[in-house]
């Protein structure tokens, strides 16, 4: 892996963001809206409920970690879509740039943009609603890592699907988090789900994070085995997503899709 070429991919994205409000605002707006919406909801629930459960720790924690995944996934997909929209594949892939360097550049861009959004979310949550990531103790680290890795895996998968199926398949990227959220048990225990949904939950790293989060809220230890399983699954997902992207890229090289890639040339 050549760091100079990875830097070139990141630099291209930074150039695009520089001075572009339409690219910069979404990094902060969605996370701020989520934090405000759920922050006021938890404040209301705290005022009317007789339960002593901290709704802030439950709901704001859930939305925070879900948004970590979401922003990283969207970050990887959006960085890729910039090359789709500007029909840049022929220019990029006729250089010495390798697939792994290209993906590394997209992921680093997403980590930088996602990191900025997460920082804003934490600051807003803390200042307006008293939310603190320290409520989850040392488990916050594995929670973050698992959600970031899963975001990288899903973002890479969405990019591979768009490369294979064409720009019309972009909606996969926007729909994926919404489709997965009921299975991941973001706001409720997975045990509430019917059997067939619980089966799919087992394969989703976030479901282990949110189960552990609720254990902490209930005064229990997060459970090392569950966290380890979630983290290991996330690593496997990243590897599978990378292999899937590489497979699609080889297919595109064989069929001429990469050379001819445009809205008109693919369905």
């Amino acid at each position, binding site marked *: 892996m050549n760091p100079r070429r990875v830097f*070139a991919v990141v*630099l291209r994205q930074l*150039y695009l963001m520089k001075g572009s409000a339409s690219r910069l605002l979404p990094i902060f707006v969605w996370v701020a809206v989520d934090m405000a919406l759920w922050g006021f909801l938890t404040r209301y629930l705290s005022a009317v409920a007789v339960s002593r459960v901290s709704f802030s720790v439950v709901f704001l924690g859930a939305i925070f970690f879900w948004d970590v995944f979401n922003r990283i996934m969207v970050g990887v997909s959006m960085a890729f879509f910039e090359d789709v929209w500007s*029909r840049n594949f*022929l*220019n*990029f892939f006729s250089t010495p740039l390798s697939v792994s360097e290209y993906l590394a550049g997209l992921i680093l861009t997403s980590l930088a943009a996602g990191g900025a959004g997460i920082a804003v979310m934490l600051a807003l949550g803390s200042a307006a609603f008293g939310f603190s990531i320290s409520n989850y103790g040392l488990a916050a680290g594995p929670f973050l890592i698992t959600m970031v890795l899963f975001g990288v895996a899903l973002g890479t998968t969405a990019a591979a699907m768009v490369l294979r199926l064409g720009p019309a398949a972009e909606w996969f990227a926007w729909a994926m988090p919404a489709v997965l959220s009921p299975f991941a048990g973001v706001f409720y225990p997975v045990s509430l789900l019917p059997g067939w949904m619980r089966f799919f939950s087992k394969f989703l790293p976030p479901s282990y994070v949110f189960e552990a989060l609720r254990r902490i809220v209930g005064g229990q230890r997060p459970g090392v085995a569950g966290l380890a399983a979630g983290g290991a699954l996330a690593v496997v997902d990243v590897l599978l997503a990378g292999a899937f992207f590489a497979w699609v890229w080889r297919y595109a*090289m*064989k069929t001429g899709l990469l*050379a001819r890639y445009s809205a008109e040339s693919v369905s």
Partner: protein
Amino acid sequence: MPSIPALAASGLSKRYGDVLAVGGVSFEVAPGEIVGLLGPNGAGKTTIISMVLGVLEPSAGRILIQGKDIAARRSEALERTNFAAVYAPLPGNLTVRENLRVFGLLYGAPRLKRRIEDLLDGFDLRKFADSKAGFLSSGEQTRLGLAKALINEPSLLLLDEPTASLDPATAREIRSKIREFVRRGGAGVLWTSHNMHEVAEVCDRALFLSRGQILLEGDPRRLPSQHGKANLEELFIAVAREPLSLEAA
């Protein structure tokens, strides 16, 4: 000791299902040589260029760029290659200077800052340096594409109709810049064009493609008379319309 060819393609084929786009083509481009790749639309020129650029996998055959097999040592082979094509404009949402910087880094161009300044002057792009590439006219975008193509001072330069959208005066200037670059650096150039006057003026050798195969090869200034044609344009039309008659000859 003979010099290593800038490009050596052997037995190069590309098949899409039942359609043979390129069928067992072999040719070389020597350092300092400009080779014209000619043929009617659909003859396989762009397919060959895509395979040499590493964005299309051949069904069979081998491509060596300065002796490096593109299938086995892709990054190394492409580091000293570059291209410009009318159908591959640089990202319109980056400025001229940003585009040159990004692609300079991708190609590992040495002394990049200085190189970018030289190219801005050389291709008359200085006044557009901080303009978005998408706002340039087609001729200015072509000049930017050519500046990008020379950013790493390639040993192999692939040009797919490089002067197609330029006015005659600018086209002549660009041809002269490319020839100067070849004379100075000894790069090999594979040049496709439908402008036969340009080919006769610029190319040391021409390869005529028809239906994915090389039909004729030789000096573009002598080929017409060798095949009983008045000029290169007539020869081109004969290749496009009656390739079998030329094969028989």
